[in-house]
């Protein structure tokens, strides 16, 4: 019985590609989870959706000219943000501008994929292919994760103040515009790490769900920064085991587990509120 249990838990990792997939997924999920704590509080969930889709043409072009994906992604993330800012006006509200820009750039990315001869299937960028991650991709994901986590932790208090009251930072002489730019650059980099795991379409889930789940479970931001990565790690572990034994797609399974955990947290918070209301009555 014990041996069967050990085999059950260790068997998936007998394969090199599963080890790579697990390490990459953990790194990508943790960095997305940390970033998501700020994104959900700032109200940038839709912006995360836009940036994650808009980087696609940048990634394809970077592939074509042989540059790291991250450079193409960051360039197109800022092109998208610049376009959204330019188009937004009293006639075209920001949500409409975001919708127009990200779908147009996403479509451009799909067109570029369709005309780009490649040895690797660029379609994997759209839907993710965590089981196909090689050494170079893994190294890239780990470097991005380390850099983004380091910057997030160093600028932790500035980003929290930015999310809470960005106007106040300007009165102190701390540029909220610079912090905003830095946060968007981190979002673009994180997207590059995560899109190799779950694909462009599902990246936004990893950029929102862990932070939103943590927010439901605590009223302290410092605790959110622990809870969100824990939620992400649990999702990766369950996602990988379920996908291995049920033979289903790994990236989407990780996102699905995140969604289920959010559902559990949501139910728990509803029950807590109901209990508090009953106690008050």
């Amino acid at each position, binding site marked *: 019985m014990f041996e069967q249990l050990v085999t059950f838990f260790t068997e998936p990792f007998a394969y090199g590609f599963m080890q790579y997939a697990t390490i990459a997924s953990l790194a990508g999920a943790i960095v997305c989870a940390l970033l998501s704590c700020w994104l959900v509080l700032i109200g940038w969930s839709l912006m995360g959706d836009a940036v994650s889709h808009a980087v696609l043409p940048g990634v394809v072009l970077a592939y074509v000219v042989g540059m790291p994906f991250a450079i193409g992604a960051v360039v197109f993330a800022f092109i998208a943000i610049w376009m959204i800012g330019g188009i937004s006006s009293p006639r075209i509200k920001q949500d409409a501008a975001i919708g127009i820009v990200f779908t147009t750039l996403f479509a451009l990315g799909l067109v570029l994929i369709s005309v780009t001869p490649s040895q690797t299937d660029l379609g994997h960028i759209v839907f993710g292919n965590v089981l196909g991650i090689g050494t170079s991709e893994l190294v890239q994901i780990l470097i991005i994760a380390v850099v983004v986590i380091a910057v997030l932790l160093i600028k932790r208090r500035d980003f929290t103040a930015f999310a809470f009251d960005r106007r*106040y930072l300007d009165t*102190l*002489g701390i540029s909220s515009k610079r912090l905003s730019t830095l946060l968007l650059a981190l979002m673009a980099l994180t997207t590059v790490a995560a899109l190799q795991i779950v694909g462009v379409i599902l990246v936004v889930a990893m950029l929102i769900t862990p932070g939103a789940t943590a927010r439901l479970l605590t009223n302290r931001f410092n605790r959110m920064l622990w809870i969100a990565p824990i939620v992400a790690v649990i999702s990766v572990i369950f996602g990988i085991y379920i996908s291995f034994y049920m033979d289903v797609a790994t990236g989407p399974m990780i996102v699905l587990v995140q969604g289920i955990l959010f559902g559990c947290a949501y139910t728990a918070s509803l029950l807590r509120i109901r209990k508090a209301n009953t106690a008050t009555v």
Partner: protein
Amino acid sequence: MNLKVSDLNIRYGDIHAVVDLSFELPKGEILAIIGSNGSGKSSLLAAVSGQMFGESGEVAGLTGSIEWQGEDVKLPRSRGEIAYVAQSEHIDVHFPINVREIVSMGRFKKQGMLRLESEADSKAIDIALARAGITDLADRSLLALSGGQRKRVFVARGLATDAPLMLLDEPFAGVDVESEVLIIELLVQLASEGKTILIATHNLPTIKTFADKVLAMKNRMLAFGTPEEVTEIV
């Protein structure tokens, strides 16, 4: 050093929010800025604090003066010399941080890149909390506070900055009587310690209890002087 505003003009598109405004306020005095909605009070405070570009004019009296000459704009930075207490309507009261963490933001400019809290910072934060009368609320979130208590939190954040110039935008709006009295007493005390204070307010009846000077404006200056002088004119 006196605070001197000279020929200040602020424009939003076709709207001329502040027109040729000039005045001088001695160090350690409180100026109440009065006027109806849209009269340019908040724009004036935003310009003095360096949040907004003026079209032309100059604000002098800080370590570095802020000067605007048409397109030739030098980005103003307060370098921690201004404590700004904004109207707090835009604040998300559900935000998951407590009162002490909010007040500690006032110390950011005195901390390094990591914003690590030194002993001096902790002391300044404790003093600010105590002077605003919210020490016992330090662990609470904004959601658990009344309107008056919330306003005192932002006043405490301004105090923690320990800046020579303090700007307050409608500090008495939506505030209970207890908080209003406490804020007024605190501001008078701060002025007696040498802080220069600008307050944009609608609260005309109480102005005489704290203001040394009053500026009445409707985009341009209507009157400037002691509360008695201005009340007579307006």
